[in-house]
């Protein structure tokens, strides 16, 4: 479904990505992990068209997409969420989803201004569809609240809902569990799994919460200093010594600091 082929990118002399290649299979949940600054978000930004790579190709459904603008890529069926939630905070929850329907609807500047009948029909359709999506992600009860007033856990889910509204084939999730507690993370994991299983949407996930990654992903790619150091099933990756050294840390959990030292 998605092939990353020898992507390189540097920022002012600093190499962020070096010859990255991997594939994402249709219907998979692919996790992308690695230390902060390893280039995960940069890679997402390249796939979604925000950055242009220095070299390499991104192939989505058999088509080269690296030269396309973010808007075009979104319209081809790749939607995404952001590390720092990028909701429309001063708009209501339902309106956020409705904006997601924009690319799938048509009525223009002038027909809207004159309120032509087909505009009204389309508007009702947008409304109905958006309510459906809200119910699907269990946020129906928040419909008319301002997005910025939701707790962070629901904001993250709303952002996923907004991405779904564009009817994507592939969704990129950038650290969806950041700032969530155990319960919220569980809930998020359930929703991501549901989306994959029921809507058959492929998912690429950048995440630091290893519990989540190990529980829901089908395959994991590990980046370190802009290079792929491991690629495989969650279990394989977890045992990979290089991954442990670079990213997971040794078996030993957080030291029992206070107790250990007194």
């Amino acid at each position, binding site marked *: 479904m998605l092939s990353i082929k020898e992507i390189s990118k540097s920022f002012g002399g600093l190499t962020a990505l070096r010859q990255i290649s991997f594939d994402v299979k249709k219907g998979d949940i692919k996790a992308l992990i690695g230390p902060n600054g390893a280039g995960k978000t940069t890679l997402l930004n390249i796939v979604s068209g925000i950055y242009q790579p220095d070299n390499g190709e991104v192939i989505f459904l058999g088509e080269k997409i690296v030269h396309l603008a973010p808007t075009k890529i979104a319209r081809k069926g790749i939607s995404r969420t952001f590390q720092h939630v990028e909701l429309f905070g001063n708009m209501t929850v339902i309106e956020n989803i409705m904006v997601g329907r924009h690319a799938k609807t048509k009525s223009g500047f002038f027909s809207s201004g004159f309120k032509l009948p087909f505009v009204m029909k389309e508007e009702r359709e947008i409304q109905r569809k958006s309510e459906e999506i809200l119910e699907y992600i269990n946020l129906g009860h928040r419909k008319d609240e301002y997005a910025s007033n939701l707790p*962070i*856990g629901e904001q993250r889910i709303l952002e996923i809902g907004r991405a779904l509204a564009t009817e994507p084939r592939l969704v990129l999730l950038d650290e969806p569990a950041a700032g969530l507690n*155990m*319960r919220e993370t569980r809930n998020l994991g359930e929703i991501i799994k549901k989306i994959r299983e029921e809507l058959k949407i492929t998912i690429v996930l950048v995440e630091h919460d290893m519990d989540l990654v190990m529980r829901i992903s089908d395959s994991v790619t590990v980046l370190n200093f802009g290079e792929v150091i491991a690629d495989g099933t969650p279990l394989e990756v977890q045992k990979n010594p290089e991954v442990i050294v670079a990213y997971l840390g040794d078996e030993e*959990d*957080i*030291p*029992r*600091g206070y107790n*250990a030292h007194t």
Partner: protein
Amino acid sequence: MLILKNVDIFYGKIHAIKRVSLHVNKGEIVTLIGSNGAGKTTLLRTISGLIRSTNGSLVFDNLDISKQSPDTIVKKGISHVPEGRLVFKPLNVEDNLLLGSFNWYSFKNRSEIKNDVEMIYSIFPILKKRKKQLAGTLSGGEQQMLAIGRALMARPKLLLLDEPSMGLAPIVIKEIFKYIVELRNTFGLTVLLIEQNARSALRIAHTGYVLETGRIILQGPAEDLLLNKDVQRAYLGRDVDYEI
């Protein structure tokens, strides 16, 4: 060292913090856990003077700080590492650290300040490598270290840490927690820590408080909380059962 008694905080009409009492003893690591929106950050911001409490008393080193401005509170010895780090992005790393010493900065102190900066560099060697880089171009973990370093430059007695592990890789989280313990052990620093990562927080802490919808619902030695069934179910997740 820090004593909160029956503190009430209103956000407009919302009663965000309800009669919260809390003790932080000298040399302790105290952690405050609870779900998002429970009021943890609000409480921390009140201690550092960014938000005013409506009722109750906040006493630090036998001194009422409830009416003090944030800059005075820093002078009294409380440093706050805010959620989201909030480093000064367009300034370089070294300037960020220097600004940390703002409350005692003067020309005649400059050699001491230089020493402190070097000390921060020795704790976080990566910052030394990046010292001329703009803070906004650092990675998340580096920004967190810079934020802690900047707070330490104020020479605090009490360090308030708001979600230091957020968005960091597992190995970096472990490192940050190790640093926190180290700071407490080598400098005798007192720490009040808010964490989403409740398990790690309770492991390094001496005392823990659980905050839900603005109220303290549980408190006690961190070890006891780790074993508490309710805490395990609500904040620690499944793994805790076989781990302990």
